[in-house]
């Protein structure tokens, strides 16, 4: 009840203030709080040369990337909502928000809640121009939702469910309830070498490197830029 009494007290104070204002006829001043709207968080990336040195992109590519980035996010940072909206535009059939959330966490390496251009570009550099090792490590980091260094079945289940959510309702064949679970089981069977229920980074790297399919597919995204 303390909250209630505090509110009552505040209400009384406000009432007294209103009476006072009525008598003196002061015009209502704009409240200071209204003025301090969310100050625009503005972030400027490091210089072009530095980024070029840190990533595997050329200057030209960085320019192109930045222009697009800046257009969508003039403030220089992407927050999760914008990220989800952008990603959702590519998957109009289903609901991409959960997967976008995990993706966002994978991009936001410093866990600040916003992705700056540097984070964005370094992640892209790994995904598009990195070594196989780096790519696989990035993917492991994506699957490891709580970033504890291990992937357990629940995390995998969440990821797979999020991916299936992106497919939407109208799929062929019809999506069953336990399709994601089966998918996860297959995955674990493949990845979990010592069958202890969790996949470590080494197991993951090893299993992926044994898999021709995955290796071949990793080369697919070379020319995305």
């Amino acid at each position, binding site marked *: 009840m303390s909250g209630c009494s505090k509110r009552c007290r505040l209400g009384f104070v406000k009432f007294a203030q209103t009476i006072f204002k009525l008598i003196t*006829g002061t015009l209502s001043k704009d409240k200071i709080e209204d003025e301090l709207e969310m100050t625009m968080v503005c972030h400027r990336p490091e210089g072009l040369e530095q980024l070029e040195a840190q990533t595997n992109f050329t200057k030209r590519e960085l320019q192109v990337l930045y222009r697009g980035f800046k257009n969508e996010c003039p403030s220089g940072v992407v927050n999760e909502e914008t990220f989800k909206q952008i990603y959702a535009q590519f998957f109009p059939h289903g609901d991409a928000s959960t997967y976008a959330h995990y993706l966002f966490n994978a991009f936001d390496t410093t866990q600040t809640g916003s992705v700056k251009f540097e984070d964005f570009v370094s992640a892209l550099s790994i995904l598009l121009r990195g070594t196989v090792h780096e790519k696989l490590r990035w993917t492991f980091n994506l699957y490891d939702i709580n970033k504890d260094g291990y992937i357990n079945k629940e995390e995998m289940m969440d990821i797979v469910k999020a991916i299936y959510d992106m497919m939407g309702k109208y799929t062929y064949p019809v999506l069953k309830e336990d399709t994601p679970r089966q998918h996860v089981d297959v995955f674990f069977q493949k990845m979990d070498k010592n069958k202890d229920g969790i996949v470590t980074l080494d197991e993951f790297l090893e299993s992926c490197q044994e898999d021709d399919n995955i290796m071949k597919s990793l080369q697919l995204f070379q020319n995305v830029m």
Partner: protein
Amino acid sequence: MAAGVATWLPFARAAAVGWLPLAQQPLPPAPEVKASRGDEVLVVNVSGRRFETWKNTLDRYPDTLLGSSEKEFFYDAESGEYFFDRDPDMFRHVLNFYRTGRLHCPRQECIQAFDEELAFYGLVPELVGDCCLEEYRDRKKENAERLAEDEEAEQAGEGPALPAGSSLRQRLWRAFENPHTSTAALVFYYVTGFFIAVSVIANVVETIPCRSSARRPTREQPCGDRFPMAFFCMDTACVLIFTGEYLLRLFAAPSRCRFLRSVMSLIDVVAILPYYIGLFVPKNDDVSGAFVTLRVFRVFRIFKFSRHSQGLRILGYTLKSCASELGFLLFSLTMAIIIFATVMFYAEKGTSKTNFTSIPAAFWYTIVTMTTLGYGDMVPSTIAGKIFGSICSLSGVLVIALPVPVIVSNFSRIYHQNQRADKRRAQQKVRLARIRLAKSGTTNAFLQYKQNGGLEDSGSGEGQALCVRSRSAFEQQHHHLLHCLEKTTCHEFTDELTFSEALGAVSLGGRTSRSTSVSSQPMGPGSLLSSCCPRRAKRRAIRLANSTASVSRGSMQELDTLAGLRRSPAPQSRSSLNAKPHDSLDLNCDSPDFVAAIISIPTPPVNTPDESQPSSPGGGGSGGRSNTTLRNSSLGTPCLLPETVKISSL
């Protein structure tokens, strides 16, 4: 899709790396897309209009885009200028800020567009110069109000369909707040309105003098005394309804504390309290006098109408927002009254038989005169009194006329806002529907593309060119991305029609035939299982080891899984999306009998046709065997080379 989104496509595609370990089939190859910078004068090219300025000018504000190294990202080395793809008219204002130090706000531009430009160039809105600041802030506030209204309306309005599992309380509250959501709520709404009206009318009629009974024809009584029972019953009924309504609202309110303090609930309480007090007060004369005054509060029931009438609410809201002006009016009037009353009193003091017996008595005269009522029950008789009296009436007109326009303009603004909000809400639905219709084109583009057989391999050269309309690079890449997702999840995108067909077929699924097939994919030494119906497939993994050997080891295979019952082997009709075999879909994994899978082996040029030979049935068979060649379901057009679809039954 918005042009800006195109620039994010590479990132979305790169993020697809995250699907790779999960994908049970290899992802399709990427499309081949032909692809495609002491004191000096800088040229800034904004959408074709060239602005030239000294470098120093821009350096004056180093924490903005143009003043920092961020502009290097926009430098075009070949032409030696900085190119920005933005509005050149707005840029003029931005550049002027650098030159003069004052940021001006263009009068004819939309305030939000201006804000966006400022955000892009890194200028804080506070930099708007004093000359334009007031207007800028006003326009911005107006905009913000309008947007907030929209959001509120969306949240509070018909938009949110309550989740199915909402409690009785939530539903009740929603019915109270938005009576048009359900018929019961509407009925309740009208019933309470009716009873409020009845109660108010009864209160009024109660006091009308009725001719009393024949016993005393000359004496007139108010109707309330003549028919006390009838009025009492009516009052009881109304109060019962109001009490019930109040208690229900109290129960349903999400925050009871807040509800108790709200104005409407206070009005409710005040409206019904006199009745209850009257019930419990003993009918002796001392108290009943006080009780009678309490009955006055019954008139507050008329305020309950404000829930029903929007106009009343607007009026109330206006008065609330004009509180300061009203207060000013009141205060200045009071001052004037006291001054003039004093003057009049002393002016008329000498006269005998004067009405101005004291200063408070003169208040009445002053008020009546200042508001130009002029009842005439008190008039000054001395000359001085008359002079001051006329000054009083003239100043009265002035004092009252001043704050009134402010109040009127406030009311008009709020009223129009409300009207606009209603209009906008009505148009919103139509607007959204049209936007959705326009957008559905892109949603279906991928499905259309698949229908036209675009997903087949590039091996079949001209065939493909004929069927598939040329797509832009963006479309190609986007479709590739969606295709990758399909491969990862082993499910395909379809449209609603096909989906409902499939759903219907699944529910019909029986188990007539025991034809089973298992698909598998050779991934090298057999530990890896990439079938899409893994439960079945897992068990058959071992058995498949043999059969996989002969299956194509092509670089890309499409794997479709369906379990089906076989109807008569009549030539199948092609559905809109998939040339479904005459098997209907039945992912009936519970059935221990069968899982049918179709392997379709497209023809990458690498594969030789030999590899698509039907495999020898592996393992021990159970039940019926069938080896059928079925058309690949997903590549439906004549363009595709029908490759073997193997079903090996076990």
